[in-house]
């Protein structure tokens, strides 16, 4: 949208950009390096930039003894479960909010949005007591269930923005032919928003994967997720930073990959569809 800048200005812009990258990406790389450093080089002044990389910590995390392998699997189960459970609730709601006139549409949309702003910590103790009482404490289901308070509102908003883009004319033709609403939704609209469905599920997955608050009180030793795994290292005496870092890297990789692959939709995902990007 701007005219192309002159060489000197261009140089300044690239220099600024390099600084930005150093500031925002540098710490991530620095932390990833921690996972492959020989232990003696982790805390030194001045910092050691070049070293012989070692896979010891990563092996410890994933393979032998696989200290965090189970937690990685648990994170996957909880995040996938949360996304799958959410679909039958959020997709019809998003469809209705996109396609029909509703007097309280604005109120309902804002109500969902309000849920995304609720303080999770305020809900932890009640959920802990509730899940203990109904015998679900420590189960995957308990986490999958309470994650819906975040995943459903998020998905409704994002899905609605995708359904909004499907021309109504396509549905009108079927409606004239006498097709029922659910036939239209399942056979015509949903296949057309399949990319939207995938994008929504992917970002919802990241949302669930990164959540630490709910597993903090609802998971057990057996069902602990990766963020809890990193916290556990910290609780024990004699923190082994290379283990923390390699567990954290395992936690970091899936969201990063999803954001890189779905780069086109990142703005949309982060704003719940409010900004098309």
């Amino acid at each position, binding site marked *: *949208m701007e005219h192309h800048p002159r060489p000197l200005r261009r140089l300044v812009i690239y220099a600024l950009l390099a600084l930005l990258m150093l500031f925002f990406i540098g710490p991530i790389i620095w932390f990833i390096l921690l996972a492959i450093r020989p232990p003696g080089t982790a805390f030194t002044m001045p910092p050691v930039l070049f070293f012989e990389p070692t896979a010891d910590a990563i092996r410890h995390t994933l393979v032998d003894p696989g200290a965090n392998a189970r937690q990685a699997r648990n994170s996957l189960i909880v995040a996938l479960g949360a996304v799958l459970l959410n679909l039958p609730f959020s997709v019809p*709601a998003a469809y209705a909010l996109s396609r029909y006139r509703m007097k309280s549409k604005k109120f309902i949309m804002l109500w969902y949005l309000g849920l995304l702003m609720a303080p999770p910590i305020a809900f932890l*103790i009640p959920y802990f007591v509730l899940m203990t009482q109904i015998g679900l404490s420590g189960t995957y289901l308990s986490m999958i269930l309470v994650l819906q*308070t975040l995943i459903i509102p998020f998905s409704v908003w994002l899905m609605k923005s995708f359904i909004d883009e499907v021309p109504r004319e396509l549905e009108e033709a079927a409606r004239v032919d006498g097709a029922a609403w659910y036939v239209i939704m399942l056979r015509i609209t949903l296949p057309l928003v399949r990319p939207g469905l995938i994008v929504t599920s992917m970002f919802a997955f990241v949302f669930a994967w990164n959540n630490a608050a709910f597993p903090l009180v609802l998971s057990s030793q057996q069902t602990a997720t990766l963020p809890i795994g990193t916290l556990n290292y910290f609780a024990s005496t004699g923190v082994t930073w290379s283990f923390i870092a390699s567990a954290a890297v395992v936690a970091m990789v899936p969201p990063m990959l999803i954001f890189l692959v779905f780069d086109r939709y990142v703005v949309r995902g982060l704003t719940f569809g409010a900004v098309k990007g």
Partner: protein
Amino acid sequence: MAYLPYLLVAPSIILLLGLIAYPLVFALKNSFYFWNLQTSATPVGFVGFANYQMVLASPAFLNSLINTLVLTFSGTALEFAFGLAIALLLSTRLRGMSVARALLIMPTTIAPIVVGFLFRYMYDPQGGIITWLMASIGLDLPAQGILGSTNTALLAILIADVWQWTPFFAIILYAGLLSVPVSLLEAARLDGASAWVMFWRIKFPFVMRTALIILILRFMQLFNTFDLVLVLTRGGPGTSSRTLGYTLYQQGLIDFNIGMASATTWLVVIIVNAIVGLYIFFAFRKWEW
């Protein structure tokens, strides 16, 4: 068929209502009881408003409220300002900008707990790279370390949050800037408008619509922050970096004082609703649905 859309929305609303009504009712009821989970599995005695009085009278609550407001307002403002500046930088059409943008968002993708560890490593008083950098340029660092001093602990949390969320503002505002119609800018240029005027009169109003929604989202997330605090400082030293979110964590999950935690919960719920309600009322009045 007028009720059909409501029927489609109903399952999600019912599930969500069930999931949030329980904690709210639970907290409301128990805020009037004395109940320490360590000594009793059930509430012990009705105490009226005593829990509320205790919370409101405790310096820790007041401190954490002030800390939370400082963190929330300064964090949101800084992230928005830096984000907007970066968005303007990205919107100069140069080669490599789309790659830069795709990489820039990486901090935002990381779980806040992990961000906490990342910064804890860098702040380490013995060999953290931030400590080293600041010492190298001759800054006077507290002897107890950046996270160990009452003067710098909250600031350290703020910096970690600004690091994680500035890219969030940057790429969203960048998308907003891209949607400014070229014809509008061309017309302004022909009229001889300066870059400054074009920014404030055309681009800024255009991105404000986008900004409205992400500002409140970020504001509330920051208001509720507790994972970052948990990993970085545990609210310390003293209560110098304690946020409302961490106070709730402390009361409920460390002290197991359910009565007090419940009272705090409701105080937070009231504060949050007041802020969000006011904001939504004013900011979203002209929003189209």
